[in-house]
């Protein structure tokens, strides 16, 4: 069988060979040459497809199993109600063979390689699929371990690039240490760190510095003080009301499924955020979380497109905030984009500031604490914020002094919301496009909304109901600031000596 491989740059090959020679002398990671492919771990299809297998066995097997038992109990006599035992066994055997062949083929045809510039994954038995991603465009790398994979010490490597198709590239499953090694190697390549061609094994796991770990108590408290509890209270009130109205306890059975759903929501929220830890390394910010399914995310420097800090009214007494980010590629994968975009599920103001310091090392202002605090909780014009004019009171009776923006040398801060407080921070060099919007009522009041377009994600920066002249100033000013920031912006490869002079 011939190996299918995409077109590669000639130097790919040459460098791969040098690395290969060096590998013979030492141990460690080396990149692959063009026609060198690896397979994922043989158990992977089973780990991926176990749910389907269980479901199928349950669907078809339950009745047949009963029949089988009945048939055995009746002494192997022909059972008129069900199929004979040999047929069921044959069916079972056929299922095992079919699944086995399918799993083997899907394993056999899935292969990957990591060359100096690309990661390539080929998969599919009938419909072949070849995906290739440029390493220097990596936006984030996740090492995901579902529960079953953890039992086998396997992990899935998820590789988010902005230029490949809709979803992330996945390598599932690899041995955990192999996945971590690949991650380190890809990040080292992506950072542009000059790897010694004679000693390619010196692409080490970047050293980590633990920054923050959330206690289970905090997570539990945050889960209890959330929208789920509001729903639970409403549900309890409805149940009690129904009990009084009807007087028969049997009405409570109606609420049982809903109560189960609430319990499941609590459980999910708690297990996802459990053991949340943040560490910093030269490779970027590293997040780890999860109780049963665990995930380790690495977001290289400069990949965060926007940050959103929110506080719901029920978190205000505790002074807690939640921090979301936009990363290119994260938003497009709907299935698990929710938890992945959270960099701090619940944190105090000081912890939020720490995280902001990790994500934006340069706040671009002399008094970052004061400015960001004003953005989180402040009102009015304190710390240089510009807010809606008094006539916006008609549309925003409470929030008009809160609706506001402020720009620093490096980022734009948009704040809004009185009950649900929000602060959105977008670095100037990550601005995609801008727009002004005005509806009929707003035109009557000479107000304009300013919108900033970021990559798909939970943060949609907007400044509501600005004075028309102010909005124009912000619009043109922000376009100019973004253009300047792009020109002097940092290169994609964050450890490489900058050669981006325009």
């Amino acid at each position, binding site marked *: 069988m011939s190996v299918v491989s995409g077109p590669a740059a000639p130097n790919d090959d040459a460098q791969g060979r040098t690395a290969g020679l060096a590998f013979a002398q030492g141990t460690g990671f080396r990149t692959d040459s063009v026609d060198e492919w690896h397979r994922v771990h043989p158990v992977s299809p089973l780990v991926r497809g176990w749910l389907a297998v269980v479901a199928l066995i349950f669907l078809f097997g339950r009745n047949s199993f009963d029949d089988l038992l009945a048939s055995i109990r009746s002494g192997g006599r022909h059972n008129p109600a069900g199929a004979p035992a040999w047929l069921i066994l044959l069916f079972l055997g056929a299922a095992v063979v079919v699944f086995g062949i399918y799993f083997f083929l899907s394993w056999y045809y899935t292969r990957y390689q990591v060359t100096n510039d690309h990661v390539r994954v080929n998969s599919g038995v009938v419909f072949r699929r070849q995906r290739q991603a440029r390493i220097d465009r990596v936006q984030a790398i996740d090492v995901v371990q579902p529960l079953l994979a953890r039992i086998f010490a396997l992990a899935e490597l998820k590789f988010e690039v902005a230029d490949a198709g809709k979803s992330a590239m996945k390598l599932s499953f690899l041995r955990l240490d192999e996945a971590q090694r690949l991650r380190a190697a890809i990040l080292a390549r992506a950072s542009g760190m000059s790897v010694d061609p004679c000693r390619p094994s010196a692409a080490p796991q970047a050293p980590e510095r633990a920054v923050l770990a959330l206690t289970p108590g905090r997570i539990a408290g945050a889960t209890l003080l959330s929208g789920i509890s509001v729903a639970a209270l409403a549900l309890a009130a409805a149940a009690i009301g129904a009990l009084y109205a009807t007087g028969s306890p049997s009405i409570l059975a109606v609420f049982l499924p809903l109560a189960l759903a609430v319990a499941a929501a609590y459980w999910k929220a708690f297990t996802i955020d459990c053991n949340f830890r943040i560490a910093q390394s030269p490779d970027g910010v590293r997040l780890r979380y999860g109780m049963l399914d665990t995930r380790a995310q690495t977001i290289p420097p400069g990949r965060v497109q926007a940050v959103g800090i929110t506080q719901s009214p029920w978190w205000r007494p505790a002074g807690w905030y939640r921090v979301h980010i936009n990363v290119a590629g994260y938003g497009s994968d709907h299935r698990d984009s929710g938890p992945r975009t959270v960099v701090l599920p619940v944190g105090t103001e000081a912890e939020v500031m720490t995280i902001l310091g990790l994500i934006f090392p340069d706040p671009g202002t002399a008094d970052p604490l004061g400015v960001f605090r004003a953005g989180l909780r402040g009102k009015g014009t304190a710390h240089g914020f510009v807010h809606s004019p008094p006539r916006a009171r008609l549309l925003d009776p409470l929030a008009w002094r809160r609706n506001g923006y402020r720009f620093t040398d490096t980022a734009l801060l948009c704040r809004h919301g009185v009950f649900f407080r929000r602060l959105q921070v977008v670095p100037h060099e990550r601005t*995609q*496009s801008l727009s002004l919007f005005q509806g*009929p009522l707003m035109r009557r009041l000479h107000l304009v909304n300013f919108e900033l377009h970021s990559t798909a994600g939970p943060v949609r920066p907007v400044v509501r109901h600005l004075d028309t002249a102010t909005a124009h100033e912000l619009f043109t000013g922000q376009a100019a600031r973004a253009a300047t920031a792009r020109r002097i912006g940092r290169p994609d490869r964050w450890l490489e000596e900058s050669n981006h002079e325009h």
Partner: protein
Amino acid sequence: MREPISPAGLEFRHVSPKLVTVRLLERGLGSLLTVAVASLPLVLRLAGVWGGFPGWLAWAILLLTLLIMLWRLALIPRQVRAIGYAERDDDLLIRGGIFFQRVMVVPYGRMQYVDVSVGPVERLFGLSSIKLHTASASTNALLAGLPTAEAARLREQLSARGEAKLAGL
């Protein structure tokens, strides 16, 4: 007339007035279908199939639909006149809308790719649409009703400038 929402001191170029005809045709066809559906109760009632349907309601549905459709058609010339674009050194500005106005600025360095599309009715009138894509899904920068030559020029221009100013994400 300068739209109050667009920044001052910019010369916006208008799209081809033929877009009015294109939109009238496209939307008129859709409106006809809607009106046909809306007149169904009345027709059925007059034919005696659906005698129980209140007559005033049948008339009201038809008239209301007709009014809305006519209003939407009448808006088209003003809507088309409101569309404009301006090329600046670093970015392209696009504006549009009458009641709900929007001005958008798309930096050349942020453009991922440019789409030029021609629909069947547009082709009859020699028009094209151009759409700019950035890494953001909310960038909805569609510029319809450009003469084909102008669309080609703009596409080339945008690609050239995008290449010169290209920044990472």
